[in-house]
């Protein structure tokens, strides 16, 4: 067969240009860089400074190619990472052009003259672009016979990142990342010539939540991780793709491990979600899974001694089943799965509650929550997904305007923050309904483009608790911006603090046409809603009160009709209150830390009062201390499953470390149910995923969204202020235990207040203030910032500032504020005596129930808070 010579060439598509690379014709979109066009064709041009997510720099000159434009060869080789394609261009890379090859070899030799022979001890050795390209394009022998430049090494850039300036090829990837992507210019180029180096600012805190990314994008071993340093070599690591378990951003990640132990985690590449980035928490916080206090065997409370003792699975499951059956048949059992479960595990909890315990008393929301929120979730959130009309990361990036309400993106969902910043760098106006110009607000509001701020969003300040009212009466500027097609309103989980805020958001969306995105903090929250772990929802968004929906589930679960409970159950607060008052007999608790709950004291009372408590946990908590049976469960790295991120996007992951013998919650619940003569068929996450798939989502009508009138913020009386609070990304969370390097980049704990409030209460920056409420007090350093008067901001769970546990009140509450009289260290203002057993306040109960010997490891805040109450 002969092929007819191709005579007619297809027309160039609109917006494309046609060029020739290494003799092959290709169409490329206008504005594409030569290096990317070549890459799409499979022609790899070596490079160091080029990175697809950073602005071009043209610094390393490694990617030189020969270029012909309009039939005329350009006299000099051109950097393909800075030059865009043009019609009729002819590009010759190192494969076809001796000149380009020579140029690249020359650059490689120059890069190596000052590079130390550190490869054997360098963490990058074995996965180093410089090493690889030197072997590919470099000379076998160096002609450099003189003295290399030397620097002292290594120097810490942050507590997590070490810099070896000798190895640096000055590609500026890290500094560009810091400036452009993260917006934390914690590093910058200093000096000039051969002495040019990366350095830290003298008067900058050097703090960034994203500094770990610089390690990953460094094309040499100049930036290395303090925690991973010298721990292993890439050729002895197994890399497994995974999903980050820390927050609802849903980052894809790569876990590198050997000998059954995770050595490091890296950001995975997922252009639709985290691009190539992750936050330091996702990167560095993984050692909780190998902490020494992790449960490996089931524990059963010994009848005679009252202490927990190790038991066999058979005994523990038997005991648990018996206890639960008794409690169920007495006054019932409440189920608290916690917000960190996978969707599969959540489904198992949901099924267990309904089938084995016959109750709708189940709520995964181990945080502030409200009925209004539940209505909002059932009407507006459940069932949304990227392919079902949900807001996505791409929608945020392309939105003309975004308004964040009760949501601090950098602290609560760092990848959402990065996307918002990326959007703001392009064209998006980002508004924040909040209290102060936090770093995260600053970095998304006034974003410097190439030559200064081009456009900006704004902080719309409102008193804490007044967010709902503020949404109803937005400034005209923000209101108009939100009326543009594609605008998005992002609501955080903290919205549950403010009565009427969910309703106000729905009203605003109706009024302006903006779409609503709900971003919770924990990774499991979104999937748990789909899996039906709320008192009003069955799996797939089916309402408990909808008989048709119940019938669906009954059929799928092989139940007789009307076997499912048909009345909405109690929510977390309700379950705890009912248990504390004796209306419920037992509790089945998953990963719930009572100190995260809005009323930790109530949780402790409930645990104390319950007749029978089963805890599925990894490591000791307040719940396990009180539990009758503790069943150990697997950490994320040892199980498979799915997280739904805030978009509703399924983030599936497989087992990373096999054969450790640890079991996922769904397997434990399945076996426990068998002991109770119930078959859940949730032996493996895969089986559950299959069942979820078959079940599908409910196609019936969604309930109406809530319409609660907006309540105004409370009016502080004399000596009082309004409390604003939210979690910081790096805080006292137990998943960050035993990570001292990570903790080093946590933001300092400070109480923020306005200048006028500070003056009124006689507080200066740096002085300590005491914030008091019914539950107790918190004493931290004060910092004066620009924020509404008569408001104090505290981090929810950082250092000594444990708002839920110590104060027992939340965002928008009225609290007492007092400046600390300068006093000798250790002395702090008087507060209710925590040791009195009759004191109902949180600290007292906690003191009573938590033997100090079994406190969780790394609970560093403990001593501070005790100090403040002394």
């Amino acid at each position, binding site marked *: 067969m002969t092929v007819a010579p191709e005579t007619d060439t297809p027309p160039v598509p609109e917006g494309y240009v046609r060029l020739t690379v290494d003799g092959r014709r290709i169409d490329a979109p206008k504005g594409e860089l030569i290096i990317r066009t070549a890459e799409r064709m499979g022609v790899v041009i070596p490079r160091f400074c080029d990175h697809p997510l950073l602005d071009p720099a043209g610094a390393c000159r490694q990617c030189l190619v020969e270029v012909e434009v309009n039939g005329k060869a350009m006299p000099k080789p051109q950097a393909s990472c800075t030059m865009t394609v043009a019609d009729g261009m002819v590009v010759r890379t190192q494969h076809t052009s001796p000149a380009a090859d020579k140029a690249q070899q020359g650059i490689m030799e120059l890069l190596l003259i000052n590079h130390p022979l550190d490869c054997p001890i360098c963490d990058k050795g074995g996965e180093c672009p410089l090493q690889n390209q030197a072997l590919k394009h470099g000379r076998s022998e160096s002609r450099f016979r*003189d*003295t290399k430049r030397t620097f002292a090494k290594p120097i810490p850039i942050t507590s997590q990142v070490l810099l070896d300036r000798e190895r640096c090829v000055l590609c500026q990837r890290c500094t560009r990342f810091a400036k452009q992507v993260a917006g934390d210019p914690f590093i910058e180029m200093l000096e000039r010539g051969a002495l040019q180096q990366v350095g830290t600012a003298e008067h900058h805190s050097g703090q960034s939540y994203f500094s770990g990314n610089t390690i990953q994008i460094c094309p040499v071993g100049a930036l290395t991780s303090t925690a991973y340093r010298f721990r292993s070599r890439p050729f002895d690591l197994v890399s497994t793709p995974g999903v980050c378990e820390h927050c609802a951003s849903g980052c894809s990640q790569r876990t590198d491990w050997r000998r059954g132990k995770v050595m490091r985690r890296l950001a995975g590449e997922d252009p639709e979600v985290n691009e190539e980035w992750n936050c330091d928490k996702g990167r560095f916080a993984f050692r909780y899974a190998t902490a020494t206090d992790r449960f490996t065997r089931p524990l059963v409370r010994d009848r005679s001694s009252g202490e927990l003792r190790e038991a066999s699975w058979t005994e523990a499951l038997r005991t648990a089943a018996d206890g639960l059956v008794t409690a169920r048949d007495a006054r019932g059992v409440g189920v608290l799965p916690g917000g960190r479960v996978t969707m599969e595990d959540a489904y198992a909890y949901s099924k267990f509650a309904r089938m084995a315990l016959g109750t709708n008393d189940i709520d995964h929301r181990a945080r502030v929550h409200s009925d209004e929120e539940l209505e909002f979730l059932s009407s507006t959130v459940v069932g949304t997904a990227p392919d079902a009309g949900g807001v996505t990361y791409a929608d945020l990036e392309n939105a003309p305007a975004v308004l964040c309400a009760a949501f601090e993106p950098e602290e609560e969902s760092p990848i959402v923050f990065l996307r918002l910043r990326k959007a703001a760098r392009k064209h998006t106006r980002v508004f924040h309904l909040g209290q102060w110009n936090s770093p995260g607000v600053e970095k998304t509001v006034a974003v410097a483009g190439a*030559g200064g701020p081009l456009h900006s969003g704004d902080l719309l300040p409102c008193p804490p608790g007044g967010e709902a009212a503020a949404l109803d009466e937005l400034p005209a500027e923000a209101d108009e911006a939100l009326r543009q097609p594609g605008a998005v309103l992002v609501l955080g989980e903290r919205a549950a603090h403010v009565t009427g805020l969910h309703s106000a958001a729905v009203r605003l969306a109706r009024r302006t046409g903006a779409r609503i995105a709900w971003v919770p903090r924990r990774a499991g929250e979104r999937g748990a809603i789909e899996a039906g772990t709320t008192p009003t929802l069955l799996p797939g968004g089916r309402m408990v009160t909808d008989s048709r929906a119940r019938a669906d589930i009954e059929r799928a679960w092989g139940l007789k009709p009307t076997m499912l409970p048909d009345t909405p159950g109690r929510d977390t607060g309700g379950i705890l209150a009912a248990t504390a008052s004796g209306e419920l007999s037992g509790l089945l608790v998953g990963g719930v830390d009572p100190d995260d709950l809005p009323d930790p004291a109530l949780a402790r009372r409930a645990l104390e009062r319950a007749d029978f408590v089963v805890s599925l946990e990894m490591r000791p908590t307040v719940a396990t201390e009180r539990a009758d049976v503790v069943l150990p469960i697997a950490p994320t790295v040892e199980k498979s499953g799915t997280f739904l991120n805030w978009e509703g996007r399924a983030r599936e992951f497989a087992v990373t470390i096999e054969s450790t013998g640890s079991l996922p919650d769904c397997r434990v619940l399945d076996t426990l149910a068998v002991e109770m003569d119930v078959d859940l068929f949730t032996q493996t996450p895969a089986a559950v995923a299959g069942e979820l798939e078959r079940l599908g989502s409910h196609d019936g009508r969604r309930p109406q969204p809530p319409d609660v009138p907006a309540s105004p913020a409370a009016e502080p009386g004399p000596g009082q202020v309004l409390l604003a609070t939210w979690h910081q990304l790096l805080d006292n969370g137990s998943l960050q235990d035993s990570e001292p390097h990570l903790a080093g980049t946590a933001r300092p704990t400070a109480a923020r207040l306005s200048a006028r409030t500070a003056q009124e209460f006689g507080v200066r920056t740096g002085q300590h203030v005491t914030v008091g409420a019914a539950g107790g007090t918190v004493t931290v350093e004060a910092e004066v910032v620009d924020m509404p008067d008569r408001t104090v901001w505290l981090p929810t769970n950082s250092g000594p500032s444990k708002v839920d546990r110590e104060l027992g009140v939340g965002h928008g509450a009225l609290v007492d504020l007092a400046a600390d009289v300068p006093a000798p260290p250790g002395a702090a203002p008087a507060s209710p005596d925590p040791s009195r057993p009759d004191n109902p306040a949180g600290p007292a109960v906690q003191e009573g129930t938590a033997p100090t010997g079994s406190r969780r490891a790394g609970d560093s805040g403990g001593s501070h808070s005790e100090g403040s109450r002394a």
Partner: protein
Amino acid sequence: MTDAANPPEGTNPLTPVLTRRWLSPRSWTLHTYEQLEGYSALRTALSAHPDQLIELVKAAGLRGRGGAGFPAGVKWGFMPKEPSKPHYLVINADEGEPGTCKDVPLMMADPHSLIEGCVIAAYAMRAHHCMIYVRGEALHCVRRLHQAVREAYESGYLGRDILGSGFDLDVVVHAGAGAYICGEETALLDSLEGKRGQPRLKPPFPAQAGLYACPTTVNNVETIASVPYVVNGGSDWFRTMGREKSPGPKIYSLSGHVENPGQYEAPLGTTLRELLELAGGMKDGVPLKFWTPGGSSTPLLTADHLDVPLDFEGATEAGTMLGTTALMIFNETVSVPWAVMKWTQFYEHESCGKCTPCREGCFWLAQVLERMVDGRGTEEDIDTLLDVCDNILGRSFCALGDGAVSPITSGIKYFRDEFLALCERNRSTETADTALVGAAR
């Protein structure tokens, strides 16, 4: 022709232009300037349409005096006509090229000609802000400029509604911190913005996004100072001087082994032979060995090139560049490798560090040359030098790298023997080694 310091007598076929006021008493004052036709061009210019001025400069063929020789009128024409953003005029007075000494004397002796040129150019480009970026070391010069700007403001040549024309212009004199790279126009803009001076990626060119991402034109001092004369004299008059493609007068700065070093104004295209006559010949009659036509970044020339016409085309034909017309004259007592080493050390010190070839290359070249001058070089090193130069030339981000290799490649081209002589001592061991190729050393 004239020389500021030592006016030659009787050899003057041409009225000096740029330097005509330099010898007047207190030439830097507004009073002197006004008496000698000062600010007369400004009145003419302000009555014309801005586009007419651009056309005039184009017709005069005024080429940039900073080294590259880009036609000034064309450059001005790149500025957008409708000012949606502020326009900026930036004067590059960061004279740092080794051997160059023309802008500083001009600003010292006749700062008002620069200021008048600034106003005319800014008017033509619809700019209301003009920055003069002066080398920080030239402290005296900075003071004179400040004084001149103050005088100009007081007399209504700057500020609001200049001479009743309705045109506003503010001039800021900015003292740089003395980095050679800040003479590169985009690095200068970065430095002016308060950042580290490092060249920017082009495109966007300054005319689209320069200072503070606004349309900007960067011109050399001498270019702008020539503008009032073009306006007063007209393009035809301007073209009577110099050559077809490089018209106009030029200040040549002669330094080194000449009897009377200094600034000599002459039409473009004047040869070194003529300039040497003006400067009184070689010092003490020691013969010329080599010279640079426009600072150390331009390939050096030898005594064979005495009759090369020093304009943009003539220099290019001779295999070099006109540069800043900084003629450094060396007699036979000077070792070429030594001079090349000193220049290379300068480039090593002044490389900004942004791109690999210039940063690492200059570092390497300087070490090899230092070693050679110290008598520890080998013949192999000469090849290495040339190959490294080849790897820098045309590969670096800005022209600094290209300039850095010029003295080395041209030095070896014309004076290879001198480099070889330095390696003589190590020749014997070299051959011994060659005989034992493959053997462990």
